[in-house]
């Protein structure tokens, strides 16, 4: 479904990604794990068109999207949920969701989707007229995911959904991720929390300073000594 080949991305003169290649099949959850500054978020930003690669190609369902503008990539069904719970702070929950459906013009459809989101995230329904900035961290994270889902993505790029959340909330978020996947959305997940990420993902790639060093099944990697040493602190 998604095929990334030899991706080279620079911030000015600094090379953030050094020839990354990976793929994602329809219906999969694939995790990118790695330390700070490894290039995980950069990878997602490049896929969603917010950043441009200097070299390499990204194909989505066989279509080349490397140089497409971000809004067209959204229309193709790739939605990026940026890290750090970036909601529209001065808009209400409802309006945030509405913004998520920016690419959809069918009002009835949007209303139905919002209803669905409220069923999936009852907390958001309670707070639908509250300003986004006044939500708690966990609620904000749910809102960013819900907003991402509003445009019916085929592929969801999730950037550190568990960042800065209490353990209980992290569990909840990962449950949500699994449900979303079961309902047919493929997910590319970037995480620091390797244990959780590997537990929910079919396959995973480990990125270190801009290159992929290890790849494999989620379960296998969990058993891999070097991963455990490097990221799980055991």
């Amino acid at each position, binding site marked *: 479904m998604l095929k990334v080949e030899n991706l080279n991305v620079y911030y000015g003169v600094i090379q953030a990604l050094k020839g990354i290649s990976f793929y994602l099949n329809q219906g999969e959850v694939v995790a990118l794990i790695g330390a700070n500054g490894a290039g995980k978020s950069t990878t997602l930003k490049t896929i969603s068109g917010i950043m441009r690669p200097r070299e390499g190609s990204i194909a989505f369902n066989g279509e080349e999207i490397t140089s497409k503008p*971000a809004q067209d990539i959204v229309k193709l069904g790739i*939605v990026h*949920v940026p890290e750090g719970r970036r909601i*529209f702070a001065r808009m209400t929950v409802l309006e945030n969701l509405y*913004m998520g459906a*920016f690419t959809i013009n069918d*009002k009835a459809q949007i*209303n139905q989707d*919002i209803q669905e989101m409220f069923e999936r995230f009852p907390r958001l329904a309670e707070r639908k007229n509250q300003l986004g900035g006044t939500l708690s961290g966990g609620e904000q994270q749910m809102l960013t995911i819900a*907003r991402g889902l509003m445009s019916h993505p085929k592929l969801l790029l999730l950037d550190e959904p568990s960042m800065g959340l209490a353990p209980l909330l992290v569990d909840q978020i990962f449950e949500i991720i699994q449900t979303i996947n079961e309902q047919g959305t493929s997910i590319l997940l970037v995480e620091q929390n390797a244990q959780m990420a590997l537990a929910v993902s079919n396959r995973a790639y480990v990125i270190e300073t801009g290159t992929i060093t290890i790849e494999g099944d989620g379960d296998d990697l969990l058993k891999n000594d070097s991963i455990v040493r490097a990221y799980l602190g055991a």
Partner: protein
Amino acid sequence: MKKANLVSGFRSGLVFGIVLVFLFLIGFLETGAGLLSKFFGDPVPTNTLPKLGYVILFLALMAIWSGSGSSKKINPDRFSELVLPVLVNGGVLGLMTALMALIFGNYVKAGVDVRNYLVAVSPASIKMLMLNLTEPVQAALALFALMTVATFLGALLHFVWNRHLSEKVKRTVSSKIESVGQSKMMSLTSHPAARYIALAGALALFFFLPRMWGSYWNYVLGTVGIYILLGIGLNLITGWTGQLVIGYVSFFGIGAYTFSLLTAPEPHAIMMNFWLALLIAVAVSALVGFLIGLPILNLRGDYLAIVTLGFAEIVRILLKSDLLTSFTGGPRGIRDIGGPTLFGADFSSDVNFIYLIFVMVILIAFVANRLQRSRTGRAWEAIREDQTVAKATGINTFSSKLLALTLSAAVAGLAGVLFASRNQFTGPEDHILLVSINVICLMIVGGVGNIPGIIIGALALKGLPELLREVSNFRMLTFGALLVMMMLIRPDGFLPARRPRMKRPMVEDPQEKAEEGA
């Protein structure tokens, strides 16, 4: 007795003392007392001093303010806790005032003309400060007593108000104010009949007032209207889309000049029809906005602010340059600019012009309001909140910003046309950077992102200085003080933006429905 309370009393006294000394040194005491005098229906003839009573009242008001301030800060349960700090407050304030009177009094007595050193301190104003007493010592004692007593009175007033009255009054008054501003006003205005009556009343007012109050007020109000237009225009790009434009005046100037060159007899003698020239001028402004945005709006950050800042200066200097004198009229500007016509008839009397400006303001405010509620408006707002996320939700941030800037420039062009046409003259000095700064200020004062706020801001910034002509020399000082106060009291502006909530929730909510029914 808490030490902190004494300190805050001391501080309040010191601050107000310094302010008072400063006000006296710049000669404001006379102006302030004069204003009070006028307020009580007793205007001071020129070249005479206000009556002694008003001077005392002015000083006392300052002290009362100081005293109530320290009472507010200390917020005691019993008045006895307040007594000592307030005495310190009043004492310090009184001492500073008395010292000032003593020093200047002795100078006058010794025959020194203080004006050689402090321009604004005339012998008459010193006499006024000394409460018309001749002996400096007497004056100092009187002032000390006055300030201490008045400070004490201020604290007492505030205490009584705070303890016994404020609860009741506040509950009724401020809840009313709050709700008038918000929900009740909404429910009132949402009632169709009330709405139409209010609308009819406003229209009648718009129609009759300009005929009655004379050309001076029409001129002032016309300027306010033009600034409302500028405010609404700038608000599109800066208030809603969050992209700071500092050199907004350039679009204003381009609109004004395009229109002027097309309608004035000199230097080109095209003498085009008003409405056609207006359309062309607006289009040219919009085009310039578009062209400026094209290379910059892909970038983030403050590039737009800096580029427009530079552009505004370039435009002004070009208009002024000798090189272009034959084309733009140079430093002399353009005279005899065409006025509006309506079905061939001349429509350019001051009354007619104010109607034209009203109509344009209403039109543009309506369009801007519709835009804000549209998909485009929401995209703008999303860009302001977070550009990356806006991109990630599928908004074409570049074209949205470009549209905002183009529309914004077009509105500025329209304002420029009205401005030039009304004054029948425009020159480079009408388009200095101060205009942009004023527009940004009025937006901030009124409330960024809010059209009613902008209207109030324009009234305050362009209308108020006219009212402040009373304080002539201190117009800008008073104005600055008002702005600072404004920022302290209402940091989000006079009418902070309340985003238009979706009236009908997208999702039917049974609970809400039940509430509505009840």
